[in-house]
């Protein structure tokens, strides 16, 4: 290495040393200033007001929601009770107007269908459901009868 190169390196290192020393002093000065700065813990009035407003608004919304929910539930229950009472009254009135029919219906509902076997019941159902199907040749046979008759 030449003397110039050595000098350049030395100059560079000196400059770096100076920069690092300045950096250290700068950080120390900043830190000391911040460390000894008096601290205030009171939040600003504006922020406090804003927080209070938001808290009250949320509280009101929650209270109104709870109240309306409770009222809705109460009204719904009342409606249901009234409808049930009306239905009960209708049934009682109908039963009072047609005592014979009601008694018969009640009797039919109460009495078990004794003496009817499963086979008989199925046969009765088949009989009710089945119908007489016309024979496919029957109309022609009727025509033949008519012609023959003449």
């Amino acid at each position, binding site marked *: 290495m030449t003397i110039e190169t050595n000098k350049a390196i030395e100059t*560079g290192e000196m*400059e*770096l040393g100076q*920069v*690092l*020393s*300045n*950096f*250290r*002093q*700068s*950080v*120390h*000065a*900043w*830190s*000391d*200033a*911040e*460390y000894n700065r008096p601290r205030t813990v009171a939040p600003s009035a504006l922020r406090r007001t804003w927080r209070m407003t938001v808290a009250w608004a949320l509280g009101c919304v929650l209270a109104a929601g709870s109240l309306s929910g409770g009222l809705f539930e109460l009204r719904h229950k009342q409606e249901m009770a009234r409808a049930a009472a009306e239905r009960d009254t209708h049934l009682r009135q109908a039963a009072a107007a047609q005592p014979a029919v009601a008694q018969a219906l009640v009797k039919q509902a109460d009495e078990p269908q004794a003496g009817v076997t499963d086979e008989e019941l199925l046969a009765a159902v088949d009989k009710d459901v089945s119908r007489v199907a016309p024979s496919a040749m029957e109309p022609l046979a009727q025509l033949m009868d008519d012609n023959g008759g003449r």
Partner: protein
Amino acid sequence: MSPEAAQEVAAEEFARIVAALRPQIFRFLLSSTRDVDLAETLTQDCFLKAHRNWGQFRGESSALTWLMRIAINLEKDNWRNRRLQFWRHTRSHAVDLDEASEWLPSGERTAEQQLLAQEQLKSVWKVVGNLSGRQRSIFLLRYVEEMELNEIALALGLSEGTVKAHLSRALARVRGEIGSRV
């Protein structure tokens, strides 16, 4: 010595250490985070943790090295938590490079010299900001806190050789940044 008396002595000793080393821990955390509020919070946490574990301190390293180790771990945890909670709008109070570079060392200087010093400080802050967490800690412990290499190695739980290597890389970057500016 009765347990009560021993406890009292330990409390007095801890109070003395807090009074002596609190500014230094705060300074290290301030230079690491560039955030005054965060540095204050982490300093409080550091001494709280130290107080809880004071009974386990064996004196194998100096109290400063032990406290620095706690402070470095707290800073690392804080950084990790912030990174994990990226969805949360966490406001950073870190000052920018210009503001951090405003603190010039006192001395008789011309306006031109002050401007040059300010530019150089900005370059160093820029490099420090771009260093990895470990390199930043090593650089700050060495050139701001002026700790010895073996103390830094103890505080970080690394070998002295590793500390030297990290420091050399960090210095090379500072040198490069200053060289590019001048």
